């Protein structure tokens, strides 16, 4: 078993572990554990399946299909040599003191997008947090992790994971926010998507690069989901529920299609983005440990660990940049590497002239 598991790339090396050898592949294991986890959580939360909202079962099926796509995409992505290294070392460095701050900046406040422009930050904040809010409300409802009961007239009891969390007046503020959480998130997403669409129509830079399938379709999907969701509220409030069933099916389909698409297109950055925290930790940790000095000018330009990792990854891709001058190109700082190339073109050792590169930044 141990021999075959080494050759089988999908099975990880810890496969003496009986749990790992029970599964044919990493994919099968992830799928099994996640779906089992969902079922067990639902079993507990719905008090042995007595409070399942079967109106939402389409979303359950959609979620399982989404998980299959997600694990397929994520695992094949994680098998790439550079990704594998980053995930492995990132997990090891997860408990650094700066992780929390980095995570908040990268995943919650999007500070780096602020630096790309306030308009882009606003639209991303609206879309991002609108979606997160919607997900935090929808999936607990779908799997019965959260539901409402009314034991006493006029008071709702919020039940989370099978436990009565609090009883709130049905016309109170908490109840109001609970009923309208999805309406609020829909308005956030619609506002954000409209800003994004406006930018894509007006901004010459965006217009130069965008394509319909990659850049517009995810926006239209989100817009469709949000509008059909809001229409459900509209139908209930203003049309006495006329057309509710048709619209709820349309909404359900739109959500499921978006979910299935999510791991493959532009929206895939949602589940993959946390790796940027790994990358920051990786650079900070190994940067403190030891820095690599440029073989030509002696400037410290990258951590020794990262330099070695990159050389290693390139080696796995049959890319070797060992020079006759006795160094690997990844061991030169960037200006020296560029000057070294000029020296290869001209025959004169430009990189050995101790002068800083000048006039390289044109002001646009």
């Amino acid at each position: 078993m141990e021999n075959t598991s080494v050759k089988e790339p999908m099975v990880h090396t810890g496969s003496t572990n009986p749990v790992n050898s029970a599964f044919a592949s990493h994919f099968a294991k992830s799928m099994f554990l996640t779906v089992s986890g969902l079922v067990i959580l639902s079993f507990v939360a719905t008090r042995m399946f007595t409070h399942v909202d079967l109106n939402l079962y389409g979303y359950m099926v959609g979620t399982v299909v989404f998980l299959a796509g997600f694990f397929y995409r994520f695992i094949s992505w994680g098998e790439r040599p550079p990704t594998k290294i980053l995930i492995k070392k990132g997990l090891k460095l997860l408990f650094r003191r700066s992780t929390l701050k980095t995570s908040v900046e990268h995943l919650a406040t999007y500070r780096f997008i602020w630096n790309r422009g306030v308009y882009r930050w606003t639209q991303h904040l609206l879309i991002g947090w609108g979606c997160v809010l919607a997900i935090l409300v929808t999936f607990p409802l779908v799997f019965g992790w959260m539901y409402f009961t009314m034991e006493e007239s006029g008071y709702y009891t919020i039940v989370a994971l099978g436990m009565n969390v609090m009883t709130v007046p049905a016309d109170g503020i908490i109840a109001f926010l609970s009923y309208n959480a999805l309406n609020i998130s829909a308005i956030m997403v619609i506002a954000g998507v409209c800003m994004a669409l406006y930018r894509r129509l007006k901004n010459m830079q965006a217009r130069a690069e965008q394509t319909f399938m990659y850049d517009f379709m995810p926006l239209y999907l989100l817009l469709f989901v949000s509008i059909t969701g809001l229409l459900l509220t509209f139908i209930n409030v203003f049309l006495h529920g006329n057309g509710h069933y048709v619209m709820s099916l349309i909404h359900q389909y739109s959500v499921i299609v978006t979910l299935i698409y999510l791991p493959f297109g532009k929206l895939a950055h949602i589940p993959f983005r946390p790796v940027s925290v790994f990358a920051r930790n990786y650079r900070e940790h190994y940067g403190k440990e030891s820095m690599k000095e440029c073989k030509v000018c002696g400037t410290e330009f990258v951590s020794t660990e990262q330099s070695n990792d990159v050389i290693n990854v390139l080696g796995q891709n049959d890319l070797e940049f060992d020079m006759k001058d006795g160094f690997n190109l990844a061991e030169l700082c960037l200006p020296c590497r560029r000057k070294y190339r000029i020296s290869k073109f001209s025959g004169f050792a430009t990189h050995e002239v101790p002068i800083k590169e000048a006039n390289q930044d044109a002001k646009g």
Partner: protein
Amino acid sequence: MTKRRLFLELENCIGCRSCLAACTQCGGHEQRNRNYVYDVNPLVNRQTMPLMCLHCVDPACARSCPAQAIQIHETGAVLSALTEKCIGCQNCTIACPYGIPKFDEEQNLMYKCDLCIDRTKDDIPPMCASVCPSNTLQWLTEEEIEEKQQRHDLGNDKWVTSMPYLEGETNVKINLPGILEGTTKLF
């Protein structure tokens, strides 16, 4: 449609840095240039040479990217990092054998020459080649590059387009300076 390539005749460069200025004006470049112009022997003479992404057929930057943020266009251009995918690890800057990718710490984003893909995908020359006043940067068909090769072919293996002086096959073709080849320049 004829497929043309960027072609560099390095010794023509007069160091005017028009290519840098033009680069800033390309759609998607956010007013920042992604190419370089170097003094070959700065303390002795004024010879300069441009350096830009050579758009490797097997790009080290994309191979080293953990996020698959560096995509290769069907024309062969190696594109700048996708803004939503780039995780800011800077592997690409370490991997590139020519030191081309730039990194913006504030935006946590790598950016590099994308061969002005909005132009070159329709066979319009990239900004740098459009403005180059000295024919250092040219936008040529395969036949024109072949013709140049024959004109300079000295039969002594001195002509090179990309190999063996580069680290791998590239989509941008380069010729070595005619001075080194012992020929007189024919513009």
